[in-house]
């Protein structure tokens, strides 16, 4: 009788541990899934930029510097590896792009061209998609990290070497600024 009870407790314990482990794996996969969504959007963004520079070249003869800056920032972003590196490189790219868009204001022909308008729409949507998938990714990271830190999952996480995931933060000036509301 005693043996059966001990065995029963052991079986329950194993089931419990397996459940915790599987829960961690599921969360880690969700983090990975979230990150691959971001990567798809980042790649799209990087692919758009050579097109943009090519289109702009024909119109802006005197802005070589601005265009070169974008290309440089883009190449840096393409070669980024870790999550933190990506965040930094994308921030730089954003800066270069917003500078470029400001310069575009001085070239009405470029601004009105069909090709540029289409590219601008694609850029805007990719940026939105990056920001939306970043929200999703960071939510998953928060869940995963909280689970790793909490008792008792932290023991399992330590045993099987689950590491905390990194948040993806792009440095964008004034991103969280609240706009003035008009009534």
């Amino acid at each position, binding site marked *: 009788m005693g043996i059966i009870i001990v065995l029963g407790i052991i079986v329950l314990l194993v089931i419990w541990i397996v459940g915790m482990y599987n829960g961690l794996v599921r969360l880690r996969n969700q983090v990975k899934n979230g990150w691959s969504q971001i990567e798809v959007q980042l790649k799209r963004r990087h692919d758009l930029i050579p097109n943009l520079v090519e289109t702009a070249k024909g119109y802006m003869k005197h802005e070589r510097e601005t265009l070169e800056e974008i290309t440089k920032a883009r190449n840096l972003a393409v070669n980024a590896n870790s999550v933190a590196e990506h965040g930094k490189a994308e921030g730089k790219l954003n800066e270069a792009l917003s500078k470029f868009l400001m310069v575009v204001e001085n070239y009405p022909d470029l601004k009105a061209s069909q090709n540029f308008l289409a590219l601008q729409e694609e850029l805007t*949507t990719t940026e939105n998609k990056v920001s939306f998938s970043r929200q999703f990714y960071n939510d998953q990271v928060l869940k995963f990290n909280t689970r790793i830190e909490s008792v008792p999952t932290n023991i399992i996480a330590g045993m099987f070497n689950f590491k905390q995931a990194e948040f993806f933060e792009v440095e964008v000036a004034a991103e969280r600024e609240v706009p003035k509301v008009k009534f």
Partner: protein
Amino acid sequence: MWEIIEANRRKSVALIFILGSVLAALGAAIGYFFTPEFPAEGVFTGIAIAMVIWIIMLLASYAGGEQILLATAGAREVKHDDAPQLFNIVEEIKIASGLPSMPKVYLIDSQVPNAFAVGLKPERAAVAVTTGLVAKLNRDELQGVVAHEIGHIANRDTLFMTMAGVTVGAVVILADLFLRGLWYSSMTGGRRRSSSSQGGGQLMAILMIVAIALAILSPLLAQLLYFATSRKREYLADASSAQFTRYPEGLASALEKISANQDKKFSKSRTLAPMFIINPMAASGKMMGLFSTHPPTEDRIHILRGMMKGSSLQAYEQAYRKLHQNKQLIGTPSLNASQEKGIRKPSPEAQQHNPKKSLRDIKDILHKTAGYGILACACGVKMKIPSNFEHKKVRCPRCGREHEVPLELLAAAIIAQDHTKKSA
């Protein structure tokens, strides 16, 4: 989020059950009315017939409800290359909302701005907007409206709306059939009346009157229930929209523009009315009350603009309670789970929107999907070339320049035409 879906499902089941009971009661009353001599058999047959009608209608709507609704509204599917901005916006919100797959995007050729969503499952969902909507709204506003519609899909409102709509439809049809039958039989001899007088008894006469009263009242009752629950869902979809876009002002100013541009002529179908972002039937604005499918637009705008602290569900709930004497809208678990993401800045294009140009672009999209190629002339004129155009050259009607008609243009037009035929 999950808790909203759960609560929605529970309430939907309850409401469908109540509506089903109304339908069964109606069936029983009708059954009794026609065979007062055998009340048990009559009631049973009446209920059985009512249930069979209901189940057939539910199955039909489950099999192809989306397609039927889209066809009723005259919607045409568009892809990314047809309407890049619209398609991109839907894709953005799909990501923000975490829907499992990309909803289909449809355009309705109408100047009146409006939008609706269908889909019994998120995997089979579709978002339809009118050309007027795309033309009149800027990018941020359009995003707000699309997010409201995807909010309906994510909260499973579309499933509920279809089910409840079908059930109300069954009640209306059954009551209508009965009353017409009654009218007809009283005109041709009145067998019913003689049988009831033969049966005698005051009780029977009273029950007859109750049956007729039920037949007259049940469609009203069913609609009342349906509309009362659909109003709350509109608020919830607005809250979801603010959460997805992180920009409540987009939807607020969109609602303002849409309600200012409503037109009674647009009422494509009464059954579709609760599905649109703003009820096309209530254009006059005086219909607000028990029978409205939507809360007053000014209320919705006021709440969205009252979200001072952010874009989360909590922020919406706070603004809602301020206006509605502290009544609770969103369940506590959802409120606790929702994270504050702040409010984003308006997009740069939002400020430089040219509605006239946009309407022209959107007309081009419709022509493209209808099987026309668009040939642009250097003078700014755009020519519609039908897919069966036989000449190799075409002269611009304004400046007289001659253009060669590119073969790939016609090929693309033919493909587009085939595509719309298939999807229609």
